[in-house]
């Protein structure tokens, strides 16, 4: 029932993008998103399109996986397109006019521009989530937030990262557990499908209470286990897998800087 649910959407394969340092990937993603918004015209946007497409090709993730992502946001895309078409009324070339609805060429172009922007945002974010495991992402966030320790927030950063790691670790466990509890209560004749909203919420109690109880029990056990292994926060803790940036990280960053410069120039010139 819940087994189809997976957190994140890591696609297990080996590609250049998979092997990039997650910190670089995360920062690069942030800058790419920023520059998608910096684009002033179609020429600049075209450059970003090419960039995203190349990233998708390099990731070796099948295109149907990306299409699946786009399917989810299709309603938002359609909605944005329609709103833009209807609200942009300037421009001389009127394509279509009926009652209070006027669609101009400018409106259509503006709508296309917005739609491409949204698609690019989704696709480039998907490149990151398909090629980076949640654990790698957490490590990257912890590492990137390290400078906060100069503000005396070092321990906080470590705690947050540890919390994220633990919750990611327990999602599959608790999903399994939920399945089991649902089956057990169904075996006692629990009816989870029929009835109105109020009775449906009530029917969830036999599942939520044992689940909460077991989550707390597991947390307690985990705390004991961490205690037994002398865990005492982030101070003096070393890592088994250190993140070390390599040539490919610097090369991709250089390429990105060139593309970004081109985007700015193209935006000014045309």
């Amino acid at each position: 029932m819940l087994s189809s649910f997976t957190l994140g959407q890591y696609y297990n394969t080996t590609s250049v993008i998979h092997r990039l340092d997650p910190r670089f990937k995360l920062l690069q993603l942030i800058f790419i998103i920023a520059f998608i918004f910096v684009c002033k015209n179609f020429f600049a946007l075209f450059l970003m399109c090419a960039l995203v497409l190349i990233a998708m090709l390099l990731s070796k993730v099948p295109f149907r996986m990306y299409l699946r992502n786009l399917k989810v946001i299709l309603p938002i895309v359609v909605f944005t397109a329609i709103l833009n078409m209807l609200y942009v009324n300037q421009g001389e070339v009127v394509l279509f006019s009926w009652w209070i609805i006027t669609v101009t060429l400018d409106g259509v172009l503006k709508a296309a521009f917005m739609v491409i922007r949204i698609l690019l945002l989704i696709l480039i974010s998907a490149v990151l989530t398909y090629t980076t495991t949640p654990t790698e992402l957490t490590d990257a966030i912890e590492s990137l937030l390290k400078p906060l320790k100069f503000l005396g927030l070092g321990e906080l950063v470590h705690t947050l990262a540890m919390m994220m790691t633990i919750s990611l670790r327990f999602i599959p466990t608790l999903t399994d557990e939920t399945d089991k509890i649902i089956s057990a209560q169904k075996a006692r004749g629990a009816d989870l499908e029929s009835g109105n909203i109020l009775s449906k919420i009530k029917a969830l109690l036999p599942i939520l209470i044992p689940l909460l109880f077991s989550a707390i029990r597991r947390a307690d056990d985990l705390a004991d286990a961490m205690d037994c292994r002398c865990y005492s926060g982030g101070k003096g803790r070393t890592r088994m897998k250190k993140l070390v940036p390599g040539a490919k990280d610097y090369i991709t960053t250089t390429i990105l800087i060139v593309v970004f410069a081109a985007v700015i120039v193209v935006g000014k010139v045309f």
Partner: protein
Amino acid sequence: MSEILKTEDLVFSYNNGSPVKRAAINKVSFTLKKGETLGIIGHTGSGKSTLVQTLNGLIKPESGTVFLDGEDLWKNPKQVYQKRFRVGLVFQYPEYQLFEETVYKDIAFGPKNMGLSEEEIDFRIKKYISLLGLNLNYLEKSPFDLSGGEKRRVALAGILAMEPEVLVLDEPTAGLDPVGRENLFKAIELYKKERSAAVIIVSHSMEDLARLSDKLLVMNLGEAKMFGTVEEVFARYEELSKMGLDVPVVTKILLELKALGLNVNTKAFTPAQAIKNIELLLKEGDINA
């Protein structure tokens, strides 16, 4: 006695339709009569837990049929959940399904779903909590304040109070101490006798199964490798050990004695039977090997 439960060529696989499809159970058939106990043996991942969940309709088999009292379980898919009151399934570690404020309310959950009257529910709760050897003053306690063994018994009472005709237990004694195990088995035997119910026990302990079961079903890699009386199944100990399964320790001792050249009857699966066979051997007096 009449057949209460019968399965025919049950097939079910996980991840159906994807390349990692894996058959959990493949063509499993067995029959069970009223008042009989069936033991199911098999490794982790042999399909035991999937099999027991097909018996009360929690899992719908891809093909094959489960007959409950001669009627196809899935004849009317909308009524399947009512069959769950007739085939009571006790999951592994059932204590983790307790959720009510009091033991009383928790045991009442199943009978209430059946739509029984208040008096009937009250009667059954008191009956089955006593059958499981717990004092009536436990009824007002919170199930979360009980010990592990007590919780297990409360959970079992919750299923027994539905008075199922077939009681299915998935590793009922996992994690219990010997005393807790004995108490649990005693209660199951009592229930079985009183309701002339059929019982299915999934277990890793050959000793327990040898003592309790009339018949055994051996599962390996999703297939029913053997189905027969305890004697028939344990007699094929060589095949069993090839599957990485065991026979009871006492049977093993007798087999070793026989291998040493003693003329001993190896058909013994409980300590009492084994003692008898060894006494016989001693009487015959041919211990000169």
